[in-house]
C-alpha cells in the first residue's frame, strides 16, 4: 500500500457552463519516506493539487488516499506550507508559530511549547523578528515564518507549495538544507511544489512535471539518481545531474511550445535558467 495515492483525480471549479476542469486524470503515488517534487507552469493547478492532498478541497471525481484511507479533511499528519504564507496578520511571528504548536501538541506544558516555538523561529533565522507582525516583515521573512510554522507541528508528511519562491539564493539554500535535514532525520515524506528545476533536483527523489492547464495532467516522472547527502558545489560536475536537468528542461520547453501552438495563448515559462548554486 502506497503512503499517498491519487487515482484518476479530476478537479473542476465552478458549475454548469462556466465550469473549468483544472486538473484531469491525475495519478500519483508517493511511498513513505519519499521526497517528490512537482514542477509546473504558473496557473496550471499546482495549488489546487496541493489542496486536494491536504484535504482543503475534494476531488470532483477520483480518490485521494492517505495511508490507504480517503482524505476527507485536513489532518495534523500532513503539514502545509502555503504559497501565500497565510500568516495571521494580527499575531506576531512567535504567536503565529505558537498557535500551530499548541494545536499540534495540546497536552504539552506551556514552557515546552514556548521552547519549541523559539527553536523553530531560530531555525529560520527570525529570532530578531520574534515579536514583529507579518506586515513588518519582508516577503522572504514571511515565507520563513510559514516554513517554521509548518515544520514546528512535526507533521509526518510535509506538503510545500512553492515555499521558497521569494527568498534570495543564500537563504533559499539554507532553508532547503533545513527542510532536507528535518525530512531525513525522521524519514518523513515530502511533496514539494516548485518552479525551480534545480531546487527539485537538489532536494527530490523524483520530479514530476505538471502540464499547463486547463485539464492539466502529470507528465512522465524523472528519477534523480544522485546519492544523498547531495553536495551543491559538486552537483554541477555530476554527469547524472546535467543529464537529468537537461532532460527535464527540454521536456518543459516542449510542452510549453506545444501549448502555445495549440491555443496561441501565451504561457509564462517558469524560471528555469541555469543558476549558480554557489551564492
Amino acid at each position, binding site marked *: 500500500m502506497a503512503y499517498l495515492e491519487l487515482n484518476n483525480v479530476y478537479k473542476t471549479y465552478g458549475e454548469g457552463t462556466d465550469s473549468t476542469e483544472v486538473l484531469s486524470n491525475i495519478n500519483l503515488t508517493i511511498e513513505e519516506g519519499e521526497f517528490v517534487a512537482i514542477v509546473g507552469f504558473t496557473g496550471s493547478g499546482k495549488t489546487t493539487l496541493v489542496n486536494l492532498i491536504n484535504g482543503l478541497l475534494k476531488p470532483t471525481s477520483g480518490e485521494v488516499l492517505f495511508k490507504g484511507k480517503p482524505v476527507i479533511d485536513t*489532518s495534523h499528519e500532513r503539514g502545509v506550507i502555503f504559497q501565500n504564507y497565510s500568516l495571521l496578520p494580527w499575531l506576531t511571528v512567535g504567536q503565529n508559530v505558537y498557535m*500551530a504548536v499548541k*494545536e499540534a501538541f495540546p497536552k504539552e506544558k506551556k514552557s515546552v511549547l514556548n521552547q519549541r516555538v523559539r527553536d523553530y523561529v531560530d531555525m529560520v533565522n527570525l529570532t530578531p523578528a520574534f515579536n514583529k507582525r507579518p506586515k513588518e516583515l519582508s516577503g522572504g521573512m514571511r515565507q520563513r515564518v510559514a516554513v517554521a510554522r509548518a515544520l514546528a507541528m512535526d507533521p509526518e508528511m510535509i506538503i510545500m507549495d512553492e515555499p521558497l519562491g521569494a527568498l534570495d539564493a543564500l537563504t533559499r539554500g539554507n532553508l532547503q538544507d533545513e527542510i532536507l535535514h528535518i525530512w531525513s532525520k525522521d524519514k518523513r515524506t515530502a511533496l514539494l511544489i516548485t518552479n525551480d528545476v534545480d531546487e527539485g533536483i537538489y532536494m527530490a527523489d523524483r520530479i514530476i512535471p505538471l502540464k499547463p492547464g486547463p485539464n492539466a495532467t502529470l507528465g512522465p516522472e524523472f528519477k534523480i539518481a544522485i546519492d544523498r547527502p547531495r553536495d551543491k558545489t559538486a552537483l554541477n560536475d555530476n554527469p547524472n545531474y546535467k543529464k537529468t536537468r537537461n532532460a527535464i528542461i527540454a521536456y518543459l520547453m516542449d510542452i510549453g511550445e506545444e501549448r502555445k501552438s495549440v491555443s496561441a495563448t501565451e504561457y509564462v515559462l517558469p524560471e528555469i535558467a541555469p543558476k549558480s548554486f554557489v551564492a
Partner: protein
Amino acid sequence: MEQEIILKKDRQPFSFVKPLVAKLTPKFNRGDLLGSLKKTGITVISILLFIGLWHWGAKALYDVEADYKIEKALTERGAEAAAAERACIASGDSSCQPNTLPSPSQVWASLQSLIADHKIIKADKAAFVEKMAATNAKLTAKGKDPIVYTGRASFIDIVFTSIRTVFAGFLLALLIAVPIGIIIGLSAPLRSAFNWFIQVFKPVSPVVWYLLVFMIVKTLYIGDSTDNAFVISFISVGLCAMWATLVNTAMGVSSVDKDYINVAKVLKLGTFQKVFKVILPSSLPLIFTGLRITLSVAWMVLIAIELLAQSQGLGLFVWEEFQNGANDSNSKIIVAMFVIGIIGFLLDRFMLTVQNMVSFNKNEAV
C-alpha cells in the same frame, strides 16, 4: 548595487559634515515644519474666511429685516413711527431688534452668557445642597428620599445629558449589534433569515423609532412616576444607530479571508478557537468601522429624539430656544449647533484612534 551607492556617497566631498548637521538639527526637519505650518495656516485662514462670510451674511440679513420693519411702520403708522422705529433699531434696544441669523459676535456673547449662567446655577445648586444637608440627613435617617435640586439645568448640564444619552445609546447598540452580527455572520441561513429584517428596519427614521420605543417603555413604566425621558431617548438612539454595526459585523465575520480560514482548517482549530482566534480578530477592523458610523449616527439622531422625548439635552434646548423666541435665542441655537458639531467631531476622532489601534492593517481605516 547597494555597495555601489554607498561608495559613491562616500566619495562626496565633506561627507563627514552631514552627520554633524543631522545631530544639530532638531527632530523634525524643515520640510515637515513648513508643511504643518502651511496646513495650520490654511485652516486658520479658512476659519477666518468663514467667520467673515458669516458676519457679512448676517449683516445683510439684518439690514433686510430692519428695512422691512421700518417700511412696515411707515405704511401702517406713518412717518413718525418709522423714524421712531429706526432710532429704536439703531439704539440696539432689545424690544425692536430684527430677528434673524445672529452675527458671530452675538453668538460669542451668548456663549459667554451661557457659561456665566452655568456658574450661577452651579453656585445655586451648591447652596441648595448645603442648605438641605441637615434636612436630607434627617430624611434619609427616616428612610425617606432626600430632597434633590430640581432647578433649571445649565447649558453645560444639558451638554452632559446629551453625551450621557449618546454613550448609553451607543453601548446599547454595541451590546445588541455586535453579538447578533457575529451570529448571523457565521451562519448563512441565519443571514438570509435576518436579511429582510435588517433591510426593513435600517431605513426607519429616528422619529418612528422614538414612537415605537415610547409605546413600549410607557407601558413598562406604568404606575411609575420617575422620569423615563432619558431611558426612552437612549434606547431610541441605540436602536436607530445600531444598524451600521450590525451590518458591518455580519459582513466582517462572513467575509474572512479564505487564507485565514484555510489556516484554521489546517491547524484544525476547534469552533470556539476558530471564532475567537481567527474570525473575530480578522473582522475587528470592519466591526470598528461600523461602531464609528454608529457613534456618529447616534450623535446625529440624538437632537431629534431628545426633542421628541423632552429629555433635558441639546435637542430640547434647541427646540425650546426656538419656541422661546427671545432676543438671544437665535444665537443660543447657533452656540448649540457649534457645540454639537464640535463634540461630534471629537467623538469621531476618538473612534478613529481606537479603530486605528485595533486595525492590524493600518492604512485600511480612512
